[in-house]
């Protein structure tokens, strides 16, 4: 199954299970989504539960919020994650804070899914990796799967979670394929996966950077350097335990972020390790990120901007040097 298909698969699984799950967004119904990630849902669940909206991101997210606090479990789509900027107030000021401000009175079991990241030559306004925007806001859970299987398991978990979850689908991964087990797949939020083991360094990556980190690991292996690759899978909750345990073994931490440099999740992780496990480190913590620039559109430029396998290899070598 493709990563793309796993989205509709998981939504269908949850809508079939729970009649309070509803799904709204722009072009998500009749058109099956602009990334074709939600094909078939309208036919199967009908126009009451799968609803095409106007281009009104604030109204979409507000509707999800109001519905969640009154008994539904909405899934809302923000077509490109860049457009979170248009409705950031509802996400960051309203949804994230409502439970806390009301001393627990308001429950907001909702999911906002969105196509995130670069690689499609869409230019600076349609290519951002904005998972860190969400991570910086207390009250939001933040999930970003790297495989079709994780889309299935984590999206189901997000829908069942009693708290608001921002679910980032990396658009460069939509065509990627992977096994998704038959039957119901439901994961737990907040567990990182060790996807390769090696004792020389710990490479932590997210979403589309996971396959790149694995490629880098293969190249390094050919040179006799064995790295552990951790797929973070979720930023909130953040699985510090898994990362720290690995760093304790390897003594080296390299983070691979698609987002621009400043204040990415890699910085947070680096600061945690530098605070809590400084003396486990045998070399500098290296962060491989997109440079702190908007993403350019031309293919050659975009490829040059995003973290490449080579830059990951170089980052590991720098930590080990």
């Amino acid at each position, binding site marked *: 199954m493709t990563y793309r298909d796993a989205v509709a698969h998981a939504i269908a699984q949850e809508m079939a299970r729970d009649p309070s799950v*509803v799904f709204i967004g722009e072009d998500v119904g009749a058109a099956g989504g602009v990334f074709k990630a939600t094909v078939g849902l309208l036919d199967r669940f009908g126009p*009451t*539960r799968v*609803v095409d*909206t*106007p281009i*009104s*991101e*604030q*109204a979409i*997210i*507000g*509707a*999800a*919020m*109001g*519905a*969640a*606090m*009154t*008994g*539904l479990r*909405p899934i809302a789509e923000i077509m490109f994650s860049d457009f979170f900027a248009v409705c950031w*107030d*509802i996400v960051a*000021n*309203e949804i994230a804070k*409502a*439970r*806390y*401000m*009301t*001393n*627990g*009175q*308001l*429950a907001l*079991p909702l999911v906002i899914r969105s196509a995130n990241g670069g690689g499609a030559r869409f230019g600076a306004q349609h290519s951002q990796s904005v998972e860190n925007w969400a991570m910086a806001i*207390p*009250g939001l859970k933040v999930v970003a799967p790297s495989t079709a299987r994780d889309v299935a398991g984590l999206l189901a978990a997000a829908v069942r979670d*009693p*708290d608001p979850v921002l679910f980032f689908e990396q658009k460069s991964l939509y065509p990627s394929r992977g096994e998704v087990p038959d039957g119901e797949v439901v994961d737990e939020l*907040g*567990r990182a996966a060790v996807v390769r083991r090696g004792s020389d360094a710990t490479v932590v990556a997210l979403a589309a950077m996971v396959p790149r980190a694995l490629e880098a690991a293969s190249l390094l292996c050919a040179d006799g350097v064995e790295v552990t690759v951790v797929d973070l899978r979720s930023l*909130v*909750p*953040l*699985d*510090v*335990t898994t990362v720290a345990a690995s760093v304790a073994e390897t003594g080296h931490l390299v983070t691979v972020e698609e987002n621009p440099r400043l204040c990415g999740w890699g910085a947070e992780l680096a600061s*945690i390790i530098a605070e809590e496990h400084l003396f486990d480190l045998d070399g500098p913590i290296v962060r491989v990120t997109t440079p702190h620039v908007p993403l350019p559109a031309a293919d050659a430029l975009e490829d040059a901007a995003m973290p490449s396998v080579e830059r990951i290899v170089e980052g590991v070598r720098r930590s080990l040097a």
Partner: protein
Amino acid sequence: MKELADLATSASHEAAPPPRDVRLRIYARMVEMRDFEKRAHDLFLQGLVKGTSHLGLGQEAIAAGFGAAMAPGDYTFATYRGHNHTLARGVAMAAVMAELMGRAGGLMAGKGGSMHLTTVGKRMMGSYAIVGAHLTIANGAAWSAKLRGTKDVVVCFFGDGATNIGAFHEALNLAAVWSLPVVFCCENNRYMEYTPISHVTAVEHPAADRAAAYGLSPVLVDGNDADATYAVAVAAIARARAGEGPSLVEAETYRHGGHSRADPGKYRPEEELQAWLSRDPIPRYRQRLVESGVDASTLEEIELSSARAVDEATQEAMASPPPDLFVVERDVWADGGSSWRR
């Protein structure tokens, strides 16, 4: 200033007046709101209410009229200027007062404060402090009610200033397209914080003149006449409940004081203020009740009991201890905690 007499075209004056018991309830609520907010203001001056607070003094006829027209299952969404709307749903005064004072016994244990009063149990779904946002959220509750097949209606209050923010537009359009059971009520008190709405708005009636942009009929009502607001509320809520979609009501009113505690409201022309003070909804309603044959003792009883209630609420709130500090890290998540790591 617009001639207020023009507003007398509102449906209510032609409609039969509300029944006596409803009128008495409306009057009682307005008096409670007034007494409560005056007390809150006093406590402010004494340094017991911290932060800020936005009083609805002078605007009570809107909250009370709508409150009386709402069924217990209907949902309220309000702004930071939400004391009156909270009390209108029967929320206990003491808990509201304690919240303003930042006490453990506050409606949200002190975590929300004056601008975020919420009592989900009474379907007071929150006071929202970012202008415009809650109109979109109100839609969500209405959509949910519709999908779940309840007949509950949502009433969403906001100010004149909110009509110029994007969320207003998005919310009104979606409500109309989805034919949601929601009543949007713009309390046009003629000012945003300190700037007159007329200086920054392309139309005279910031809400009513825009109803047509959403396929809705304009509804303009004298917001200082509780019978009128009640009549308009009854009609709009019935429409929503019958599945006929949203309404956009503009209630013209005036706040007696400044925008918030820090503001003496000096930017308003004295004649304007005086004209509106002379249309204070509470004495006006009292006089109407007297004229309609309610005897003075009934009204005095209401007034006394309100004064007592506010005194008691104040005592109770003052007796409440400061919140336990551990709550700072509670209730970010449904599990009761705030942990972001494992």
